[in-house]
């Protein structure tokens, strides 16, 4: 199951304004970490434990035809090494979809393999980041987040 969580502290912001990130990782420890990193960076987070669940959330699962989740996701961040569908394969599926291809995808990996990085960037990944992720990495991500129907108010790329 993909699970969503929201920050318990609201700073008077309209919660709908927060960018929504889909984070995919088979490691429970890493899912918890990325979730906390993103929430503390004022994002709404949905986590998925594998590529299949991620696609289902995005409306691209087997037998799905609706895409009602699409407009709500500003960024996908996925681990590269996952059993079953790798992050690269997930990236490909997203970029092959006419509905989803505009969503920026960031790949994360614990291994710094130049051919791997090149492959992902060529397939359309926005960025490739090394694990373990830190707060400074997440701040960088905000610049990649796709603007939704709400116009960008210019704050996203300013470092905090």
């Amino acid at each position, binding site marked *: 199951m993909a699970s969503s969580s929201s920050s318990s*502290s609201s700073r008077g912001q309209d919660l709908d304004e927060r960018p929504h990130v889909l984070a995919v990782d088979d*490691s429970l*420890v890493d899912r918890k*970490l990325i979730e*906390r990193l993103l929430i503390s960076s004022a994002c709404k987070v949905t986590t998925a434990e594998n590529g299949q669940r991620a696609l289902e959330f995005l409306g691209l699962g087997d037998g799905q035809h609706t895409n009602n989740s699409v407009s709500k996701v500003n960024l996908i961040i996925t681990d590269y090494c996952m059993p079953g569908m790798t992050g690269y394969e997930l990236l490909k599926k997203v970029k092959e979809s006419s509905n989803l291809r505009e969503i920026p995808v960031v790949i994360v990996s614990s291994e710094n393999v130049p051919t791997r990085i090149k492959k992902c960037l060529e397939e359309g990944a926005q960025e490739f980041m090394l694990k373990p992720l830190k707060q400074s990495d997440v701040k960088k991500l905000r610049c990649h987040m796709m603007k939704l129907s709400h116009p960008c108010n210019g704050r996203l790329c300013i470092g905090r």
Partner: protein
Amino acid sequence: MDGVIQLQRQLVDYTTSLYKEGFLDDQFKQLQQLQDESNPDFVIEVVYLFFEDSERLLNELSKTLNQQNVDFKKVDAHVHQLKGSSSSIGAQRVQNVCIAFRNYCEEQNSEGCLKCLQLIKHEYSLVKNKLETMFKLEKQVLVAGGSIPMH
């Protein structure tokens, strides 16, 4: 409140030693920075997830390495996972053994792998012990009315 100050000093000294001795690295500080009033148990929660995950992986590793025909790919996959999670929480010594372990997997060296498994189990139980002690000290500080000193 001399008691609190003493407890806080004890905690700081203990935590500092963990970094000095390489049990923890900067990534652990990242975790601490993510903890706040709205998420006061974040560090403990992640660390306990790490404990559960590690124990599962260590069991799997024992099983896999004690087969007649060792599936080194499977061993490597488990070690990769353990390396990842230990790196994510800053458990540096565990992570370092994982690196050596993966080299033995690549060489399909079962003796080397078994030695690494013993070593990992040892390092894991050390860091588990250290972290649990640190959490106990933190609790003592809080109970005495103090706050956890931030690094």
